[in-house]
């Protein structure tokens, strides 16, 4: 499901007869200025994907918290989620000048990589601009964490996405804590359960803070502000 274009092969040039002397070139990668004098500088788009399961059955469950985050983002940034493309509900919008593409894959969680992979290749979003939003059991309920890269975290959705992004794991991710299953409750049952009223409140607050964080991330990248956000989130319930 990669880019439907030809792959560049490596060209070797023998400019002189002795093979071992290679000609060196200075490589500069700047924008070609002549093309876009019509527009200002255009930023690389961000693909923001919230993971979840489609259908009423799974609506509002813990595993679908990524969808809720996308909903909040769409409402805040005024993005219309009106297109269906490659098995996902997508909406094109912008945060200030930076174009963003919100996506809610409508495949089941274990196959969400199919839609993310093809969307990323179609809109030509680089890996470092794919933000995955998913639920994380290792964090307490309502605690967010933004990371520039990470592992799969035993999340089948992330696993699938990684599988379709060539096994690369260095895409940014926003994990939303949902806590651990109480007692010896089954993990799957816990994931496909709805939030309790108290947890729902915490999650809603967290989603508001998360949308702000996504905005700063899209505008400024990973910087001091993001580490600060992580710190505040990590200890937000450890107060007197």
């Amino acid at each position, binding site marked *: 499901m*990669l*880019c*439907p*274009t030809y792959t*560049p092969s490596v060209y070797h*040039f023998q400019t002189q007869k002795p093979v071992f002397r290679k000609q060196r*070139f*200075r*490589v500069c*990668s700047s*924008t070609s200025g*002549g*093309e876009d004098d019509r527009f200002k500088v*255009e*930023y*690389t*788009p961000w693909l923001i994907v919230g993971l979840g399961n*489609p259908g009423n059955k*799974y609506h509002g469950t813990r595993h679908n918290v990524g969808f*809720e985050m996308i*909903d909040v983002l*769409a409402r805040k940034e*005024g*993005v219309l*989620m009106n*297109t*269906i*493309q490659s*098995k996902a*509900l*997508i*909406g*094109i919008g*912008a945060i200030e000048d930076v*174009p963003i*593409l919100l996506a809610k894959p*409508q495949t089941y969680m274990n196959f969400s990589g199919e839609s993310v992979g*093809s969307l*990323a290749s*179609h*809109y*030509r979003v680089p*890996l*470092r601009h794919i933000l995955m939003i998913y639920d994380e059991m290792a964090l307490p309920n309502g605690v967010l964490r933004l990371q520039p890269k990470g592992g799969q975290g035993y999340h089948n959705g992330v696993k699938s996405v990684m599988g379709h*992004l060539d096994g*690369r794991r*260095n895409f940014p991710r926003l994990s939303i804590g949902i806590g651990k299953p109480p007692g010896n409750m089954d993990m799957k049952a816990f994931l496909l359960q709805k939030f309790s009223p108290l947890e729902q*409140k915490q999650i*809603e607050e967290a*989603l508001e*803070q998360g949308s*702000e964080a996504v905005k700063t991330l899209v505008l400024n*990248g990973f910087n001091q502000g993001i580490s600060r956000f992580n*710190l*505040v989130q*990590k*200890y937000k319930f*450890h*107060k*007197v």
Partner: protein
Amino acid sequence: SNRNRNQKTNHQTDTNPKKPQSNPALKLPHHRTRYYKPVKEGVISSDGDRTILIGDSGVSYQLPGAPFEFQFSYSETPKVKPVGIREPAFMPFAPPTMPRPWTGKAPLKKSKKKIPLFDSFNPPPAGKSGVKYVEMPGPLPFGRYPKEGMNREEVLGEPLKRWEKGMLIKPHMHDNRQVNLGRDGFTHNMLELIHSHWKRRRVCKVRCKGVPTVDMNNVCRVLEEKTGGEIIHRVGGVVYLFRGRNYNYRTRPQYPLMLWKPAAPVYPKLIQEVPEGLTKEEAHEFRVKGKSLRPICKLSKNGVYVSLVKDVRDAFELSSLVKVDCPGLEPSDYKKIGAKLKELVPCVLLSFDDEQILMWRGREWKSRFVDNPLIPSLSETNTTNELDPSDKPSEEQTVANPSTTISSPKMISLWQRALESSKAVILEELDLGPDDLLKKVEELEGTSLAAEHTYTAMVLSNTDGAAEDYVDEKDRSEEYYSDIDDDFDDECSDDESLDPVGPVGSLPVDKIVRKLRERLK
């Protein structure tokens, strides 16, 4: 009769017959001893040249000719001066005159296991058990031989290169031939232990667990200082200690072993009823508040607490009180951890109740974010709480197509292309339920399957490439393609834009081929 014999041996060995104590090697010092003797800084007892003194580093033992003062533990000695001792001050080393005190038993028999010689002309076959192989002395450049070193720099030789470090560490990565360092820290007898590891191998692996891992920098500093080796790699609680290029086991510094563990001295209380900077009421209030506080982390027994200090510092940014949960740890362990945190963070300890360390950040605490202190941003979020999370974007944007407002022609063109090639479909109604949406998606999937699999070749247009060299263009086009499977640094330019349509002849490949031809002529 036993006592009589003890008396006799004491009279034989002690130069000072006035000492009332019997040889402490014969009785084990136990923890609940009633013995308590307040001590002050300075020499406690001396026996000729051999003195026991209390100085900057707790109780230490001075022997004649020793290069430094011996202590039981080099890394786990608090900076605070001890206030008393729990057993009579006595050297834990063997007395110079008597190699072994009479215990009433014959010495243990020697091991019957025969270790074959390794240094012979007929070396034992590989894989034979019981054979110990000596490693060559440190990695030296070709044609150079190890030379006898005297001081630390000479023994270490020239600094190791990166590949040499890798080569030395690699066999130790998944090996547990190691020195274990526990709650006593780096003890005196470990010096000899490390040297015996260095006898056979160039690198000694030291695995630290438990209390000393709170302050790994201290452990590493002491390790380097006392053993004379060099730390070449350090991950979490594991330290790799290199012996030096010119190390020779026979000329190593030899120290007497400690024959028993001296009882730990008494230190002043860590938790005061009224800590400094607080009134009694405040302290009480803090402790009551601390009861309901959530602990920031749970320390496991014999865990690695490398990030503990940083975590506590971080948590102090948001809250004045911080609690750390230590279930199942020994009381002396979490007291030691508390004492270390008090020095390193720094903080004021409030209580160790319920196996939890409660700390207060103190009056003179300063935030790291001085200009912009962290304020909990929970206040303004209540306005949107009544909103249903399943709400689709609704009436506030009445503009049908928001794509007209955003300035992203590339995205829009791609979007339109997807629409034209019927890979995408615009939904007429926006407030679809999840089930309806799923149905729509499945419908579309059937129709667009064909479209998904017919790809049109992407065409690049590079009109300004004439003045530049061709490799430049090749690299740039690579850059475009590596979008998906390549990770850039973030400082890489964000503004790369590319118009994907262009005439067929203007592909970079064509240009390259053309130039190549010219060049070949």
